[in-house]
């Protein structure tokens, strides 16, 4: 069962990479045509791309190593184990911390959040977990630091944490409020 899933994942990854390569080919062709048509743009375009290539290639391998370490050393079921019951301020910070640790795109986190929901975890904690997963990752912050600078990265991080907490509480309040309303209606 597990092996089948793994194979399916790998096939999916292969399909994705082929799609990206095709898009890359199209972009390369467009660029070559543009640069032949406009020879005076050759120098600025190539110089800019080269600069960004260097900046990325100097940090991406390190970022990938960090992502790999998180992926292997932080077990996925840890999330459910720790977030199932905690609440209050401790729950808020735990939800953010636990969301910020594992890696992978956001859609991987949806089934985990669904499990949490079924286990009766607080809605605010689930929203916090998802938001942290989406945008408070350590390797991600490091890349932001590299390209946008310390001031930008820290300001955005602090503001994001504050507003994500507010949002989580609002969503929980709305969900509970609409449930109660539904409950009353059903009772009548």
């Amino acid at each position, binding site marked *: 069962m597990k092996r089948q899933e793994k194979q399916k994942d790998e096939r999916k990854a292969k399909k994705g*990479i082929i799609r990206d390569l095709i898009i890359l080919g199209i972009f390369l062709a467009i660029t070559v045509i543009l640069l032949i048509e406009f020879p005076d*743009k050759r120098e600025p375009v*190539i110089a800019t791309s080269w600069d960004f290539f260097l900046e990325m290639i100097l940090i991406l*391998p390190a*970022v990938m*190593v960090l992502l790999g370490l998180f*992926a292997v050393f932080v077990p996925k079921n840890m999330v459910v184990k720790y977030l199932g019951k905690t609440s209050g301020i401790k729950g808020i910070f735990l939800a953010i911390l636990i969301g910020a640790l594992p890696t992978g795109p956001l859609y991987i986190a*949806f089934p985990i959040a669904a499990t949490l929901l079924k286990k009766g975890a607080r809605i605010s904690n689930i929203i916090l977990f998802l938001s942290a997963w989406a945008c408070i990752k350590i390797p991600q912050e490091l890349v932001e630091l*590299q390209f946008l600078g310390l001031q930008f990265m820290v300001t955005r991080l602090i503001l994001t944490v504050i507003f994500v907490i507010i949002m989580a509480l609002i969503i929980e309040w709305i969900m509970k409020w609409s449930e109660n309303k539904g409950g009353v209606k059903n009772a009548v």
Partner: protein
Amino acid sequence: MDATVIVINTIAIISFLIALLKDKEKAKKSLLVAGKSFIRILPMMFIIIIVIGLLLGFVPPEQISKFIGKQSGIWGVLLVGIVGTFMFIPALLSFPLAASLLESGASVTAVAAFITTLTMIGVVTLPLEIKELGKKMALLRNGLSFVIAIIIAFIMGAIL
């Protein structure tokens, strides 16, 4: 080579050494995962690099700043915010793209809105989110995330 590059690489090396001491097998597996993800992201990285080159080479900064610069106001910010929600690229690659926009005349507000909506909101993955979490919660999360992304963006624009 600038300080950030050295810091990031040092963190990665130290973390890996600690992992190696803790569990050799798992550390090796991490490297394998890292290698695979790196190869997986490479084509998209080159696409982004080409887009950045074309953007900075062909689109005059006046054009970019007209649409999403300081004077463009709320509409420009909403526009990039919406573009961010529809884009389905790894968050890691949104930062160089954002940096290139900033370099070519976009405002801090617009760039912050772009990154925040891109990482937090996924229109492409919304059907999956609805399936797993229910319509109400998924729509609330994505909708309110957009609102706070715009608020965060304007505060950033005011501070920085």
